């Protein structure tokens, strides 16, 4: 049975926590076999919770007893108390809102550019020849290494953070959309033609839905890249946002706030991934159905 539990989650490593959190044995799990799924959910789920809970308890005890110095790593309960305090006085929400705005703006800008260019390169031969080579070359550059250049170009203000997020989000979406469009079975396009579908109708009924799974994959990777870019961006000359909160707390040795900031980043990543998985399950019913049968 433990072997079965392993297979249920090992296919989706970054989403494994999400899969446990929503009570299902992973997106790839056998939805069509309720009896097995139930057995799988009840037995191993508590077993898989044992080690995280034990670690948390050990951390808490070490913190309380003074084995872990307060300024090195405060106990989880201290972090939570700090979280409640900062949430209570509203400062946590302000920082969170600023970070979310940056991430959202960057994602929308980078994502729009990626979808436009990906579609042009994927659909048009000329677009492929003109757009894809420079993008493929630029993708070899780790975008976080562009920070010094970006500072020269756009300054150290808000545009820097948004540019970083947009750059981080651009490549996964572009590459996956491009591959998704290219990977569409031409025989299906041909069949649609024999059914009298014009170019626009083929785009809508064949190309778009066919590329959607890849687009979702790109979006998931893009969101992960967006958070990463934000973490880096918010460490440069900022006076708001979760990153600023962490940097400021470091200067005053408020380790509890630092850890809280990290926790916030983790929760943001988890929540965005969950939301996207939910949207994906709604939009790609046929796809999940395929995996279930």
């Amino acid at each position, binding site marked *: 049975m433990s072997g079965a539990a392993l297979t249920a989650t090992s296919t989706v490593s970054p989403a494994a926590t999400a899969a446990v959190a929503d009570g299902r044995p992973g997106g790839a799990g056998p939805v069509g076999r309720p009896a097995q799924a139930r057995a799988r959910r009840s037995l191993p789920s508590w077993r898989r919770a044992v080690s995280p809970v034990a670690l948390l308890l050990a951390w808490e005890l070490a913190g309380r007893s003074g084995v872990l110095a307060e300024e090195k790593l405060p106990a989880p309960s201290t972090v939570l108390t700090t979280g409640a305090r900062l949430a209570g006085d509203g400062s946590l929400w302000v920082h969170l809102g600023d970070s979310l705005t940056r991430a959202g703006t960057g994602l929308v800008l980078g994502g729009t550019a990626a979808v436009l260019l990906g579609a042009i390169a994927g659909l048009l031969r000329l677009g492929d020849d003109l757009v894809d080579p420079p993008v493929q070359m630029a993708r070899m550059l780790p975008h976080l290494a562009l920070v010094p250049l970006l500072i020269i170009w756009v300054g150290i203000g808000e545009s820097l953070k948004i540019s970083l997020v947009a750059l981080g989000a651009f490549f996964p979406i572009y590459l996956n959309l491009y591959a998704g469009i290219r990977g569409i079975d031409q*025989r299906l396009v*041909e069949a*649609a033609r024999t059914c009298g*579908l014009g170019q626009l109708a083929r785009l809508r009924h*064949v190309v778009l839905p066919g590329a959607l799974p890849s687009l979702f994959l790109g979006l998931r990777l893009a969101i992960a890249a967006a958070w990463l870019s934000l973490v880096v961006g918010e460490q440069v000359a900022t006076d708001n946002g979760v990153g600023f909160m962490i940097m400021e707390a470091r200067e005053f040795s408020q380790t509890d706030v630092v850890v809280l900031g990290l926790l916030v980043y983790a929760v943001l990543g988890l929540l965005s991934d969950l939301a996207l998985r939910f949207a994906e399950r709604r939009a*790609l019913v046929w796809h999940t159905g*395929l995996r279930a049968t």
Partner: protein
Amino acid sequence: MTEPAVTAPVLTARGMRRAYGDAVVLDGVDLTIAAGEVVALLGVSGSGKSTLLRALAGLDPESGGQVQVRGRTAVVFQEHRLLPWKRVADNVALGLSGRDVRARVAAALAEVDLAQRGRAWPAQLSGGQSQRVAVARALVREPELLLLDEPFGALDALTRLKMQDLLRRLRDEHGFAALLVTHDVDEALLLADRTLVIDQGRIVQDTVVRLAHPRDPVQPGFGRLRRDLLDRLGVAPAGVPA
């Protein structure tokens, strides 16, 4: 719509040509199909039979020749080619418009005995069911000419027999003309009014099949026609070296 004259051809093709580089696959094929006529196009692998069908269907922009089709055409491929992201009924309805689409789709699905599966996803169907949906998708367009590219070639032998029977029944009810590309001599003789053999890009034999319906491989005359076709296709009788 007025009933077309029996002799008016539904398809006229002249000088069909296609070459891939230096390799000539179609070498000036002329073909006429009368309204309601079922023509089987036989040939060994690489003889150009599928290339001809694709050219006639307008799916090959590189092919040369003149094709005139009177009325609607529909194509059934060897693979079902259903869109996996559309339910069965939406696949059948692809490209249709009008208020009665749902009723027409339901009728077409009922004709292939899949009235209950309209809400299913293609991935949930068996190979034979998927191919029946593909037939329904062609049928719902009320074609005057049905182009079939080895439509049952990927099915198991039993399913294939049932599909051949279904096709014959639908032909009798709807009266469409059909061009059936196949490498199965029995299938050709069971279904066709006329058989063509294509070899190296040319039609080398054109035979009218005068067998009474319903046909059966054991009925008189079937075996001789079968032998003729197999000879023409270069298949020697069992035990005789070619």
